[in-house]
C-alpha cells in the first residue's frame, strides 16, 4: 500500500476520536477537573492501570466475565436455535419466553441474582448469560432460517450424515451471522458487565468505577471506562480480521451501495 493511502486511511479512522478528544480538552479548560479532567491526567491514569498488576487484574477479571458470559450464552443460544429451527413446537414454546426475557432490564437480573444465588462469580455469569441469551438465540435462528433452500437440497441429495450436514452446509453458511452476533453482543455485554459487578464484586471495572464515584475522581472513572472500550475495540478488530480471511470467497462489487 502506498504511504499516502495508508496515512489517509489512518487519518480517517482517527478523525472522530481526535475530534471527541479535542472537544473534551477544550471543556476541561473551562470546567473544574472533577467535572472535566484534562486528558493528560486521564492518559496517566490509563497507563497506571495497565502497568500495575494490582489494577490490571481488575481489567482482566471483567474481561473474563464478559467472555465467559458470552461463551455461555452462545453455546446455550446456539443449541436452542438449532432445536427451534428443527421443530415448530420448540420454536412456539421458546420464542415467547425469549421475547419476554428481552424486555427484562439488566438491573432486574442483578436483583434476582442477588436474591437467588450466593457465589459472586456465579451471579455475574448468570446475569451475563441471561441478558445476552435472547439476542444470540434469535440471531443464530435467523441465520439457520436464511440458509438457501437450493443449496440445502443439493447437499441433502448426496444423503449426508447429520454430522456432515452440519460441517459442510450449516456451519459455513451461518458463520458470517455468528461473527456479526458476537460483535453486537460484545458491545451489549461490556455495558452490562459493570452493572452485573454491582452484585458485590470486590474487583473488576464495575467495582473500580464505584470507588471512583465515591471519591469524585472523574479522571479515574474515565480511565477505567476506557479500559473496557479498548477491550471491545480490540476484539472487534480481531473479529473483523477473521471475517476478511474467512469470507474471502465472497464476490466484491466494485460499486458500493
Amino acid at each position, binding site marked *: 500500500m502506498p504511504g499516502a493511502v495508508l496515512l489517509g486511511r489512518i487519518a480517517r479512522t482517527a478523525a472522530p476520536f481526535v475530534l471527541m478528544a479535542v472537544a473534551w480538552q477544550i471543556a476541561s479548560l473551562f470546567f473544574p477537573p472533577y467535572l472535566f479532567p484534562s486528558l493528560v491526567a486521564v492518559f496517566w491514569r490509563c497507563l497506571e492501570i495497565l502497568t500495575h498488576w494490582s489494577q490490571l487484574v481488575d481489567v482482566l477479571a471483567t474481561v473474563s466475565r464478559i467472555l465467559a458470559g458470552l461463551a455461555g450464552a452462545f453455546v446455550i443460544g446456539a443449541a436452542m436455535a438449532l432445536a427451534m429451527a428443527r421443530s415448530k413446537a420448540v420454536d412456539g414454546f421458546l420464542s415467547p419466553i425469549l421475547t419476554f426475557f428481552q424486555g427484562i432490564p439488566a438491573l432486574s437480573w442483578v436483583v434476582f441474582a442477588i436474591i437467588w444465588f450466593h457465589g459472586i462469580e456465579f451471579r455475574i455469569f448468570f446475569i451475563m448469560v441471561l441478558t445476552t441469551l435472547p439476542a444470540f438465540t434469535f440471531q443464530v435462528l435467523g441465520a439457520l432460517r436464511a440458509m438457501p433452500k*437450493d*443449496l440445502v*437440497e*443439493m*447437499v*441433502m*441429495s*448426496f*444423503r*449426508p*450424515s447429520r454430522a*456432515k450436514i452440519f460441517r*459442510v*452446509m450449516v456451519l*459455513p*453458511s451461518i458463520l458470517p451471522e455468528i461473527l456479526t452476533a458476537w460483535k453486537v453482543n460484545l458491545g451489549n455485554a461490556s455495558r452490562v458487565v459493570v452493572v452485573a459487578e454491582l452484585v458485590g464484586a470486590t474487583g473488576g471495572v464495575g467495582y473500580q468505577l464505584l470507588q471512583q464515584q465515591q471519591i469524585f475522581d472523574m479522571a479515574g472513572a474515565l480511565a477505567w471506562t476506557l479500559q473496557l472500550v479498548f477491550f471491545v475495540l480490540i476484539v472487534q478488530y480481531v473479529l473483523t480480521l477473521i471475517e476478511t480471511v474467512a*469470507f474471502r*470467497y*465472497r*464476490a466484491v462489487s466494485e460499486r458500493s451501495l
Partner: protein
Amino acid sequence: MNAMDATLSTPANAAGPAEIRFENVTKTFGRMGGGDLFKAVDDLNLEIRPGELVAILGKTGCGKSTMFNMIAGLLEPSQGKVEVSGHNPFTEFNWFRGKIAIVFQNDRLLPWRTAIQNVELGLEMLEVPKAERHATAQRWLTQLGLGGHENDYPHALSGGMRQRVSIARAFATNAGILLCDEPFSALDEMTGNRLRAEFANLVRENGKTAVFITHSINEALQIGDRIVVLRRPAKIAYDVKLPRNADKAVQEEIRLKIQAVLSE
C-alpha cells in the same frame, strides 16, 4: 431383482427389472391460505430400465420438477409409489448414499468452496480418503475442460463453467443413476449445445441410467434414447423410443408427433 417386482411389472415391460418406477403416483400441494389442493402429478405410471437415457419433455409448470424431486427423494408422493432400484427414495435416506447424482437447473455450487472442493463434496459424504477424492475431482474437472480453474471460487467462474463444475460434481461420485433437471436451459445456445453433446457422451460412456428433464423438443431429440412427453398435470401423453442413429426422416416424424401432442 426379486419375484415380487416381476409380478408388478406390466407384460409389455417384463423384459427387465425397472430401475425407476412410478406406480399410480399423484402429488398434490396445499395452496397458500388453505382451500383446495393443487394437483401437480396425476396418477403417473412410468418405468425406466437400467442404462436408459430418458428425456422427460413437457411445458413449463406441467410437474416435471415435482416428478423429478420425487425420484430424488426430496418430495414424497401424496398417493401411489415411487421406487428406485427397488427402494423408497424418500424414506430410505441412507440406503441411497452414493447411488443417485443430480445436476440441477442452476449450478448450486457452495460459494465458500473452490471449484475442486465443490466437486469433492459427494466424495466426502462417501468418506473417500482425501488424496483419492482430490485426484478424482481433478480428473473430472480436467475432463470437463476446467483444468487451471481448480482453485477458483464460484463467483469468479462464468455460468457455463459453473454448470460444468456441477456436472463434474455429479459424475465424481460414480452413482449409477443420474438425474438432470433442465441443466442447460440457463446457458446461452452455443455453450448449451456444446455441453449437451459432451454430456450425452459422458452418460453413455459411463453406462448410467439417466433421467433428463427438458422443455425443449430439440434438446430431447438430441439427448434421449427415449422421450416421454408429459401433459399437465404430469401424466404420460406420449412415450417413444428413439432408434440409435435415427435418420433425419424418422426424427422429423417423431418431432411432428411430439408437437401435435404438446399442442393438444
